[in-house]
């Protein structure tokens, strides 16, 4: 049986089911990260002293990662726009760029983490480091998850473009919504952890 409302919109909602599904998922993600942000506030406010992020963390590297992630959001939305213009080749370029930028983000994060681990700055060392590793670790997992889905649409999943281009375009839009959400979370994580 075919999945209903993947291409045509429902008359009652004006949306495809996939669009509603991804937004409901993102709403749950807001609560997940929200709970951790609330924990951060609780720990910070309850602490007698709190270090500025730049005493532990590398701000230039994190700034680079912010630029990389914002750039990846642009390539992601351009990948979708390319499909809307019927330019599959351009879609592949932009989607490939998005995946590569995601990889750059994770590699930079790896260097940051390895520096901390070699310096003995572990989650158990300080509450700041505990919440830093928790928040950035969860965020990094989201980047990785987004990359896996994007790689699927860049590779084997792209076969759908030949048989049902509108469905494929909708799928790319939905994975893009997730990717932009991951970017949005980092936009708040960066000043919260590194600059304050």
């Amino acid at each position, binding site marked *: 049986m075919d999945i209903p409302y993947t291409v045509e*919109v429902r008359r009652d909602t004006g949306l*495809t089911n996939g669009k509603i599904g991804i937004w409901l998922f993102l709403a749950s993600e807001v609560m997940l990260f929200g709970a951790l942000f609330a924990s951060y506030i609780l720990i910070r406010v309850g602490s007698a002293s709190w270090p500025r992020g730049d005493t532990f963390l590398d701000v230039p590297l994190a700034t680079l990662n912010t630029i990389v992630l*914002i750039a990846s*959001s642009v390539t992601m939305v*351009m990948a979708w726009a390319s499909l809307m213009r019927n330019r599959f080749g351009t879609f592949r370029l932009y989607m490939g760029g998005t995946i590569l930028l995601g990889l750059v983000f994770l590699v930079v994060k790896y260097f940051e983490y390895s520096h901390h681990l070699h310096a003995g700055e572990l989650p158990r060392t300080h509450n700041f480091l505990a919440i830093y590793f928790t928040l950035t670790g969860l965020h990094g997992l989201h980047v990785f998850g987004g990359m896996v889905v994007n790689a699927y649409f860049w590779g084997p999943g792209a076969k759908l473009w030949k048989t049902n281009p509108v469905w494929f375009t909708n799928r790319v839009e939905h994975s893009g919504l997730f990717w932009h959400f991951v970017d949005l979370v980092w936009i*708040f994580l960066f*000043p919260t952890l590194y600059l304050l």
Partner: protein
Amino acid sequence: MTSDHAATSMTSDHAVDIDKHVRVYITVFVALMALTIVTVAVSRYHLPVPIAVTVALIVASIKGSLVACYFMHLISEKKLIYAVLALTVVFFIALMALPVLTVHDGFWIR
């Protein structure tokens, strides 16, 4: 404009529409870069914590709004999505307010 809106055809009018969107995406990208520089530059002044937090959150909120409105197309979305997000915002605010209850050694929850 979302792909849902253009589910059935990709006409030349539609292509022109997407071209406009692409120009907006590039403008938003430049704005996001500029705001990132502002965020880092302000942090170098070592402002008092309450002011630094306020400035950082205002700039981050502007950046977040740009991403949500233009990259995630929330500026032209359907009512049901807005309803889902409104409910999310209510619960998110409640979640952020929870730590406030612990102020003054939990005076508000005794």
